[in-house]
């Protein structure tokens, strides 16, 4: 039984949420829907950990659907990169789902709750699918599953603030344009290679580099994914979407959806188009490097002036995406490891921070920076979580942020880019400013008179602290995450795992 489960693990991670989602819609009961979702996400998390262990121990895995072996059928191909992304998505999914019970109970009407969980599970399945699949078109389908459901769950914030509707609309417009760009790129590659399997594409593209089609396809795919990734300057949909979505959704999407899009870009940049593809090298140098740097500074600077904490964190997310883009632009293994590490680490800290803000919203009903006055004393645990998450964002030692920054700077040194190294550390000082604005207001300003705010309930604090503690644990003991990230970077860089024998059925 266990062996059978293990053999089918790659597809189960996607299929189980996909199966559970209609159940939630069928039996329209909030508690039932939540229980199912909780069980499914917890199981998915366990499964993804198991998968990660399998990949780290035994190298890449391949699983194909139906009776069609790759490169014809849809293949799920897993190496360290996918596995770590799956862990992020499922882990954050499980934590936010635990948080959802109380938070969603307050923010979304009872009748809509089962449908909310349906959409949430669909989004999870979509994201897991994007991370797991080895088929370029299948990736598009999963991307759209996750995107469509995230438009829905963002729009559900309209019960509190009607601006959620317009932000979901904007996201829908830009997201669809991005997805369509991606499809164009895939179509172009298909015209010259005749395959949709990524590993197969990688093998065939080598000879075709000189044609004009391949660079064009590369550009289309990159722009499409960059839209989903909220890469500067294609980030315009993100701040509003994160600000007005329900808390759980913001935390979940901030920690996962941009990460998955980031993964997909990595997959295309390094696996499908090889790293020595000349056009790509130029793209990294002349596009990714400056854009990453601009994102780091411009978005952080904008974050400083926000009067809404959720929007502040949203802008900080764009800046953090800048770090990831920067890591990719080095074009070396250290930079790539830094990017993968930051994908993981940023999910932890941003998830934790948004959940902490969610606790404040739960008690005060507001995410304006004004609502934080005096909370240091009234909600000590929530604010302590916020401070630790903030320190991680700044990148102080003993937090995950430090680990990512270490490798990011190290990569810059390896590349010989001294000024870039200095710019990286300088940009994290901007994070000090925007985090400290909130900290000062929370701790050093008296609470508004006559308003008694209680500490958030345990069901909210616990999930929040799980992520925050993970920030510290993986900051103090970064050995495992760094090892995984380095393995992942190596496998992206040197060994795309071409010609991998498919996993046997039981």
């Amino acid at each position, binding site marked *: 039984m266990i062996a059978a489960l293990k053999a089918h693990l790659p597809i189960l991670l996607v*299929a189980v949420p996909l*199966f559970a989602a*209609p159940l939630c*819609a069928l039996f*329209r009961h909030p508690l039932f829907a939540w229980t199912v979702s909780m069980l499914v996400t917890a199981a998915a998390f366990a499964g993804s950990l198991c998968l990660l262990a399998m990949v780290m121990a035994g190298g890449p895995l391949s699983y*194909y*659907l*139906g*009776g069609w072996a790759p490169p014809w059928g849809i293949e799920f191909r897993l190496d360290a990169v996918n596995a770590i992304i799956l862990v992020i998505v499922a882990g954050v999914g499980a934590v936010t789902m635990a948080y959802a019970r109380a938070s969603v109970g307050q923010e979304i009407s009872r009748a809509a709750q089962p449908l909310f969980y349906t959409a949430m599970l669909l989004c999870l399945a979509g994201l897991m699918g994007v991370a797991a699949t080895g088929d370029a078109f299948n990736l598009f389908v999963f991307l759209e599953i996750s995107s469509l459901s995230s438009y829905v769950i963002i729009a559900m914030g309209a019960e509190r603030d009607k601006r959620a509707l317009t932000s979901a609309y904007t996201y829908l417009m830009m997201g669809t344009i991005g997805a369509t760009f991606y499809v164009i790129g895939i179509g172009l590659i298909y015209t010259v290679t005749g395959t949709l399997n990524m590993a197969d594409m990688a093998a065939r593209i080598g000879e075709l580099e000189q044609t004009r089609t391949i660079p064009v396809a590369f550009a289309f795919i990159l722009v499409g994914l960059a839209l989903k990734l909220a890469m500067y300057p294609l980030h315009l949909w993100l701040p509003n979407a994160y600000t007005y979505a329900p808390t759980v959704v913001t935390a979940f999407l901030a920690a996962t959806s941009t990460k998955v899009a980031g993964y997909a870009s990595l997959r295309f940049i390094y696996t499908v188009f090889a790293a020595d593809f000349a056009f790509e090298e130029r793209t990294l140098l002349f596009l990714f490097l400056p854009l990453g740097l601009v994102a780091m500074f411009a978005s952080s600077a904008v974050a400083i002036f926000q009067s809404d904490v959720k929007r502040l964190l949203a802008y900080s997310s764009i800046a953090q995406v800048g770090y990831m883009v920067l890591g990719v632009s080095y074009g070396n293994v250290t930079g790539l490891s830094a990017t993968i590490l930051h994908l993981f680490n940023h999910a932890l800290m941003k998830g934790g921070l948004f959940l902490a803000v969610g606790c404040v919203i739960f008690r005060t009903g507001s995410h304006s920076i004004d609502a934080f006055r005096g909370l240091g004393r009234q909600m000590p645990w929530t604010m302590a979580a916020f401070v630790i998450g903030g320190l991680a964002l700044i990148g102080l030692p003993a937090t995950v942020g430090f680990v990512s920054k270490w490798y990011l700077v190290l990569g810059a040194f390896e590349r010989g880019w001294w000024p870039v190294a200095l710019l990286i550390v300088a940009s994290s000082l901007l994070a000090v400013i925007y985090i400290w604005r909130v900290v000062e207001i929370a701790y050093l300003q008296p609470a508004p008179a006559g308003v008694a705010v209680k500490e958030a309930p345990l069901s909210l604090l616990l999930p929040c602290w799980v992520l925050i503690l993970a920030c510290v644990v993986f900051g103090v003991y970064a050995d495992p995450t760094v090892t995984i990230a380095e393995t992942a970077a190596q496998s992206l860089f040197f060994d795309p795992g071409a010609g991998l024998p498919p996993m046997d059925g039981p």
Partner: protein
Amino acid sequence: MTHYLILRVIAKLMVGPIMLFALYVQFHGDFGPGGGFQAGVIFAAALILYGLVFDLTALRRFASLELLCSVMALGWLLYVGVGFATMLLGGRFLDYDFLAADPVAGQHIGILLIELGVGITVAATMLIIFEVYAGRKIATEGEDDA
């Protein structure tokens, strides 16, 4: 629309054949052009026509939103369920060969069930979209009256 006798009569006559055609497209998808997506839309079109001519409330009498949602979920479950069934029978996800003793028969059964799931879901979804959009107007008018 209650005054347009011709429309009502013709619509009544049309609904049946359209549904029949939908079923044909659905089950012929195995051998020729067709399949669940197309059949679902055609099937839904028949009912939407009925709803347009005979009023939304008439359509809702036998296809209420709640029912449609459940039907949609069931169609969806059928699809994913087949995938799980093949896995339980010893194959991979959606490997129809294992649905019957003979792989070719298995392929037949598999594609039939999958397309059925798709057809049901698509039909239900189209109807839901129609009813929700059309129903929105009724809801707002109702508010105005009150």
